[in-house]
């Protein structure tokens, strides 16, 4: 455990000195938290009597999400705010990808992996240390942003129905379960990509592919193909668990002492 903590300490000491990482860690979550708040505030203000809002533009499949007694405006707000759920799901992908890209590709460019591998640290300790160093900030920032989002919601006068939807199972599953699962997949993909490229920016660009399934969810809901609800979230979680198992297997097979020293270029 001591070795894992040392690796995490080392990773954080090094990558958090990188402006690009700091930008990703502070600025992006800030934007991602403010955007849905602004949307909720503006729709709340603009609608006036949100009870008279027309729900004709909402896909029929989504209307079942709107509980009995919910006004059309509230239903529209929930529909719109669900599109911003992707931002909270993207945070655990973007942040570890940036950290892992700089931490692993950075080690390659400075040739610091060899002396590190020459220490008594085991390969699994090194892998866990690096993965946790990338995933923990992402998960914490994701959870922290959602916490701030929840704290600010009452200040912009949203209705209790919308508030209870956002603090309900769909969002909680997305933030507290899907987020960490996405982070695990992102870190392992970062390991895989980093073993094959020598530029952190290239690694980040390739790893951005992980955002595609999240964008897929949003566009699919916009097109009325799917409805973001608890059932969909549970299915997504099941799929992510399978993806994570595959990605961890891939990460472990890639992250081998000899492979790193003899094949990582």
């Amino acid at each position, binding site marked *: 455990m*001591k*070795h894992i903590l*040392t690796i995490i*300490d*080392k990773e954080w*000491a*090094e990558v958090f*000195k*990188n402006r690009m990482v700091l930008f990703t860690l502070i600025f992006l979550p800030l934007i991602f938290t403010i955007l849905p708040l602004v949307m909720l505030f503006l729709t709340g203000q603009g609608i006036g009597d949100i009870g008279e809002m027309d729900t004709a533009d909402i896909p029929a499949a989504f209307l079942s999400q709107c509980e009995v007694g919910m006004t059309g405006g509230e239903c529209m707000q929930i529909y719109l705010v669900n599109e911003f759920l992707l931002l909270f799901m993207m945070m655990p992908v973007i942040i570890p990808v940036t950290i892992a890209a700089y931490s692993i590709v950075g080690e390659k460019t*400075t*040739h*610091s*992996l*060899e*002396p*590190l*591998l*020459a*220490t*008594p*640290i*085991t390969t699994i300790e090194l892998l866990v240390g690096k993965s946790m160093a990338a995933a923990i900030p992402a998960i914490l920032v994701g959870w922290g942003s959602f916490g701030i989002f929840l704290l600010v919601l009452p200040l912009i006068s949203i209705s209790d129905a919308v508030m209870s939807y956002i603090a309900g199972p769909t969002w909680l599953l997305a933030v507290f379960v899907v987020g960490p699962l996405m982070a695990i997949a992102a870190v392992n993909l970062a390991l895989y990509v980093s073993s094959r490229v020598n530029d952190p920016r290239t690694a980040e660009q390739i790893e951005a592919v992980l955002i595609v399934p999240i964008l897929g969810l949003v566009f699919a809901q916009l097109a009325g193909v799917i409805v973001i609800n608890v059932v969909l979230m549970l299915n997504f979680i099941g799929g992510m668990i399978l993806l994570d198992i595959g990605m961890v297997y891939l990460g472990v097979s890639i992250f081998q*002492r*000899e492979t790193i*020293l*003899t094949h990582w270029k």
Partner: protein
Amino acid sequence: MFGFLGPNGAGKTTTVRMLTSLISPTSGSAVINNFHLGEDDQAIRRSVGILTENPGLYERLSAIKNLEIYARLYDVEDTAGQVRKYLQMLDLWGRREDPAGSFSKGMRQKLAIARALLHEPPLLFLDEPTSGLDPEAARLVRSFIEDLRDQGRTIFLCTHNLNEADRLCDRIGIFNTRLIALDTPQNLRHKIFGRKVVFHLAAVDPSWLRLIRALPGVHNVERVEDKIVVDMDQPERINPEIIRQLVGAGAEILFVGELRHSLEEIYLETMWESEERELKV
């Protein structure tokens, strides 16, 4: 101190990586500090220090942070004490809070050597420790390596710098995908070039060459200007007799010295012989 010499691509770095259990050998065996390669790899890594070809420092981190990380990874008990000891020993204490990336090449190399020593390994692998350093920095690093040797540590030195190996190493291995020669520099010198003694005289009379040639143990005698070069087995035994003969014949001896071939000559001769042998095969 063991000098491991060989051309680029000979496999020196690969050998060091195998001996430090960074990679596994495809065949063969080795025992490092009484630990068997392939069986006690963790213990081997714990008992050796390695300076890799590239220092591989964390350039954004301070010198002290670089060392603290490695001290913890090597499970050093007194982390702060060991870090301080080596930073002070290598004159880096004053720059301990500066990022390693701001250091000169020589300072980086010293920091990397300190990193390899934190856990006080009895065996130290140094891969090209003075490569790319300016003469002053190289001298500093070399002097520190000498100190380490004098402390009784075993040092495995991979180098292209033959003068450095000649000056520092007790034994030499010449390697080119396989071990070609292994001995002390002195013995390699004698094996390859024999032993030659140069007698510097005020003037040379050709008859003196015949006198010397007649002595037992003398293989060859040559005149080079006012010097006589004698190829012989045991100069310690034959030299006094040669001197007696020369003085008896009226020679004025200015001084006597053994002809010393450089390690570079030994290395090149060994490589040529090896290549010739391989061509014949």
